[in-house]
């Protein structure tokens, strides 16, 4: 398959994740949709790496995976902390910083 097909799949996955981030309100699902967006970016990176026959894109994809793991760690910790304080687990209800 030509590289363009992979790029089209990555664009579809990225925009699906963006729709999820915009429309869903459960922070867990918002984090899952963020993972979708990162995976779309990863697929594009690896497709470009294959396109040029160069391994730099794969290294960048690995770094993106590391950052995603860190983001999951912090995000899930925050969700657990929100749940412990009996706050609603809903991104529309969490307006404590608004003053």
């Amino acid at each position: 398959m030509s590289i363009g097909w992979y790029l089209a799949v990555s664009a579809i996955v990225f925009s699906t994740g963006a729709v999820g981030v915009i429309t869903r309100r459960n922070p867990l699902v918002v984090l899952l949709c963020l993972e979708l967006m990162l995976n779309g970016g990863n697929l594009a990176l690896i497709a470009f790496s294959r396109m040029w026959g160069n391994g730099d894109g794969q290294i960048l994809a690995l770094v993106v995976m590391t950052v995603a793991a860190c983001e999951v760690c912090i995000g899930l910790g925050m969700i657990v902390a929100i749940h412990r304080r009996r706050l609603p687990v809903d991104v529309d209800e969490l307006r404590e910083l608004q003053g």
Partner: protein
Amino acid sequence: MSAVLFFIAAIGVITGAIGVVMLRNPFYCVLALVVHLVALAVLFLLLRAEFVAAVQVVVYAGAVMVLYVFVVAYVGGEGNGSAGQLGERLRGSGPVASGLRLGGTLAGGALLVELLIALLGTGLKAVSGYGAGYPVGLPEAQTFGTPAYIGNLLLTRFLLVFEIASFLLLVAAVGGVVLARRRRGLGPDEERDVITPLDLLRPRGTGTMSEGVGRPTP
């Protein structure tokens, strides 16, 4: 053969992604993301990124998704807290909710069109090609994407990136522990379970702030 495999994997990837966005139960969302990740690993294999595909399956579909499943089981799906008026208005099937959902989907569609134009409409010849060819004699042909190749790159050209990533993981682990720990401290009955070396050297309660302000020592 590779075209058939590509279409099967691409259908799996897109179906998983749509399932994450559309399904109501967060647990099913996590399972849909697992399907998406495994299908994405097949696409990585087709692009000759074997090590990244293995890392994807082991780290993402293995470790990170287990973390998600645990948190979904702990938090318990949909938010069961007191829903305010804004949340009620957004959650129901009223005109505001469906309008916002439609707006979000339209924005996503516009983003998709823009991305497709940016990626495929650039007139870049290599995008419609099959990727860089590898002459038979070169070592690149055998080693591209293998663990040895990735490790060689990580420890020579990208050593600083590697170290920064490891430090970032350390910071995230410490932050996760600090965020998710129990805030209220130990219970009243288990408060005295911790014995410090100072407790052995001096009588209990002496040398503390409560002694300084004249409170009775425990």
